[in-house]
């Protein structure tokens, strides 16, 4: 049985491509947000990434999946955007602004622990932080993360492990227990 979306995808490859990438929108916005901590900027980045993806459709080699390809575009653009925005707004100021507005907490978790993790994650280099977030939050496999970040599988394993281990040790130092 062919669903309408599949039928249109088969009939028009460009339309199928647009439908496919639009399906990842929320995940992509979330990824961009975790790098930028700015929902409007994250949405803009995803929008720009879609345009870039559509423009570069012809250059997509098919070696990786479109999903990982899109993730890569979004992550690269987000990192660039954050680098630019850091010039305008200090990360510290941004952090405190988020702290003030961050009223939502999962009641099952200790709010102090979450704050601590958040602060620690902010201090981590992107090279370690992004693989861990893609793994723990987006539930992506190591293979997918390797494709997205264009690094080897072993590098993904190492970076996630190091980031996790650093967080654990920082927790111990702070006197909190996981």
């Amino acid at each position, binding site marked *: 049985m062919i669903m309408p979306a599949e039928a249109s995808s088969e009939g028009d490859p460009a339309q199928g491509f647009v439908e496919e990438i639009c399906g990842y929108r*929320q995940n992509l*916005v*979330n990824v*961009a*947000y*975790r790098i930028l901590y700015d*929902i*409007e900027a*994250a949405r*803009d980045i995803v929008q720009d990434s879609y345009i870039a993806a559509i423009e570069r459709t012809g250059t997509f080699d098919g070696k990786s999946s479109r999903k990982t390809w899109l993730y890569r575009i979004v992550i690269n653009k987000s990192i660039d955007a954050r680098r630019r925005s850091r010039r305008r707004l200090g990360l510290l100021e941004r952090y405190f602004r988020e702290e003030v*507005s*961050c*009223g*939502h*907490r*999962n009641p*099952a*978790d200790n709010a102090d*622990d*979450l704050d601590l*993790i*958040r602060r620690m*994650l902010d201090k981590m280099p992107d090279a370690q932080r992004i693989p*861990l*977030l893609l*793994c*723990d*939050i987006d539930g992506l*496999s*190591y293979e997918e993360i390797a494709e997205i970040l264009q690094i080897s599988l072993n590098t993904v*394993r*190492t970076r*996630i*492990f190091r980031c*996790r*281990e650093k*967080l*654990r040790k920082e*927790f111990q130092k702070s006197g909190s227990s*996981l």
Partner: protein
Amino acid sequence: MSECAQFKRRISRYIDNDLNELDKRGIELHCASCPACGELLASYRRLKHHIRNGFGPAGYADAESDPVSRAKVKVDPFTSRTVRLQLAALLALTAILLSGIILKVAHRAVRPFPVIIERESCRIMNSPLGTLVYYQELAGAAVHLQYGTIEGISGAAYGDTGSDGSSRFIYESPLFADNAYVGNHYASIQNSSFF
């Protein structure tokens, strides 16, 4: 201890489901017999849980479903680009409408449109070129509206009373000095004693 050090990295992979079945079984057996590695496994799991629930779909960093982000947008609606564009379009439309209304009112204030009771077209013999007169109905009476600048004559250039009692006053008018009405038109009014 060195054996445990080797397990650390594997434990991290274990909780991410990156091990084959054999290695998974090995980790489970080791953690069951080694309190330190058992505790490490539990710590990694709790950390993953914190990150996923604290910053993931159910919590803080899920931008699209994050109550904090939604609240921020509500508090400061002007940060939304869509809202800003809509607001700008609304303001532009309002400005255009207001300027149109102002121009219309100003135009009316300067030049009220005359209500011509009757206008006829004919060649008037022995009259100066360009003759026209207007009347406006005001409070039931016919009021001569305009013959401000009269060129070549002063007062009525031509006037008569028709068999039907209509009074005709013909003046040269600057209003139609530049078009084909010049010299060809005049207005009349019925039974007017105004003039």
